[in-house]
């Protein structure tokens, strides 16, 4: 992309970007993890329609950036929902059902074992899942024309280093 093209794109993007936001926008603490229906809430946003007249171009414009942000927010909120469900749900369950909290298997308190060692693997899996999803979303956004391949991020990162 030449400097002129980029300047032109920035110029066309600027009025959209500078307008004060009409709605509250994506609220990260909100319960809705999908993010899909927010395109309706934001009148400025044209949904999935690309504003770029030159679609195979590799550099994402503002609309594509917003789409990426929405996708990433959806992924992050889903991860957050998993974490919150476990961290909020388990204490409530054990506090409200004391009989369950006292359960023993083979003389060993079940929840003692779960809290000491059982939940950490869940966090490892969630973290790696989040990493994979976020990297994939990024690759899809930078190079929509190229089919996403699993090793490209590693290669790109090694090249930059």
């Amino acid at each position: 992309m030449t400097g002129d093209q980029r300047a032109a794109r920035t110029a066309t993007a600027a009025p959209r970007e500078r307008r004060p936001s009409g709605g509250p926008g994506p609220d990260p603490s909100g319960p809705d993890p999908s993010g899909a229906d927010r395109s309706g809430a934001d009148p400025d946003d044209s949904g999935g329609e690309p504003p770029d007249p030159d679609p195979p171009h590799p550099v994402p414009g503002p609309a594509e950036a917003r789409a990426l942000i929405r996708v990433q927010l959806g992924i992050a909120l889903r991860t957050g929902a998993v974490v919150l469900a476990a961290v909020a749900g388990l204490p409530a369950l054990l506090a409200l059902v004391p009989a369950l909290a006292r359960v023993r298997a083979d003389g060993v308190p079940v929840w003692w074992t779960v809290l000491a060692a059982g939940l950490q693997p869940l966090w490892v899996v969630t973290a790696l899942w989040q990493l994979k999803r976020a990297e994939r979303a990024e690759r899809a956004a930078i190079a929509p024309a190229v089919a996403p391949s699993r090793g490209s991020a590693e290669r790109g990162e090694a090249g930059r280093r």
Partner: protein
Amino acid sequence: MTGVAAAAAPVALLAALGLTAALGARGRRRARTAADFLVASRGVTPWWNASAVSGEYLSAAAYLGAAGLVLAYGADMLWLPVAATAAYVLLLAFVTAPLRRSGAYTVSDFAEWRLGSRAVRRIVTGCVCCVGWFYLLPQFQGAALTLRVLTGAPGWAGPAVVVAVAVVLVASGGMRSITAVQAVQFWVKIVAVAVPAVALAAMWRLDGAPDPLDGAPPRFEHVTRVRVAADADVTVPAAVTVTARGSVDGAPRDGGPVPLAPGRHRVGGGTEIVFPAGAAAPHAERLPVQDGATWSTPFARGEEHGLFRTYSALLGILLGTMGLPHTLMRFYTSTCGAAARRTAAFVPVLLTLFSVFPVLYAALGRLYAPELLMTGDTDATLLALPRSMLPGPAGALLTGIVAAGAFAAFISTSCGIVVALAGTISQCSRRRSGVTAFRGGIVVALAVPLALLPLAGTQGAATLVTTALCVSACSLCPLLVLGIWWRGLTAAGAAAGLLAGGGTAVAAGLVRVLGGAWPGWAGAVLGEPAVVAAPLAFAVMVGVSLLTRGRVPRRAGRAMMRLHLPEDALAR
């Protein structure tokens, strides 16, 4: 035996210092330019950086405090390490890559860049300082405890050592040496906690594997001599006749038998009490007396507002970790946003390696070191167990290993916080050169917690760290999350939210650290304010931003693109 252990402590300290100095010197030779000095030239690989981040997490609170809390309070405290690891998953999901892409060195830089307001920057700097100071307190306290328990050194010795090492290391080597020190020290700490744990578990098997979870409150296995350092009220669970030298219940004792009825007794400072084998261990007044089933079952203590306190502590840890200034600064040393994200993803893996050990030590402590429940020094569980289970040189060796890990913990965390605070503070001063201002920042970063230390009383390390996390959860976390994900955040909204949430949390933290416990709901909310203050901060930030929506920064749209698009997509 005490003599051997007392010899082990200085050796361990010297080992930790020698390692630190060697790594620091290596880094110092490389740190040539100011950029090297501050950010290690951003050439740190994800695994190496993840080790450093995990090394910083393994502070006095995680290394000593977690086992102490579980020993003292039981299963209710198992939530805290669980939440601490989960917090890094949230940090990964919401903060790391965008924050790295913003190019901000500190949270203050991020705030000024994103919102274009120097006023917000100053407020953020204040919040960062409060978080860092609350976080440094337990490191100093842990160092004081470690030296006192092992050698009988006066209380100022531990903090003096940590401060001296931090000043020399940070002022001379900067961040590069700190990254190397942190990363290596993570593995040092893992080994220092794992090797004694395996040895002690083997001893426990040889001892017939007694069940720590069953039966009555903890008992002394053998005839046990307990020395009480300062005047203390203790709860005696069952009638026992002891011999005492000193003062019990206000009467002087000269080594004769003293019958103790169940209930509360006052023991004077310097008193030595000898308990017969099989006697139930008295508990410090603030600690609950629990049988094995109660101890091992969540919410079985019937603590007042137990579920509320648990939720609030969990929320504080989950959100607070997102705003920890020294952890966030670590990610700045990654090469790019994607590398920062990988770093964050590897952290839970490394923390999982550590997570089992505090629980193991706590369970063994219930069997073999119940005197800690009487003296209230439960943070010393790791240090006391090897001596108690393995008399002689083997025990002293293990004690030395644990103590070396403990000093590695105090030093690495203190250095990380001091770098973060000094970097943040020095950027406020515009006149002096970078390195001079950085060194001035170091002094400010260390002076305040040192002044607060004598007032902090008998709070455990983990309590103090959760206070720091709560301040971060109620101020820096909302700023980062909304700043990264919501274009509509305004400077006025951020400032109002920071002042409301951060102010509430700092006030509650000061009351908690300096004052005593309050009864009822007021005490529960003051003790764990996160569930109230964090939503308050979010709500004020969003509400005021909506009221001032005409003043959304012009750069917001472009800033959002820079935060979320990979660097090479923007550079092309």
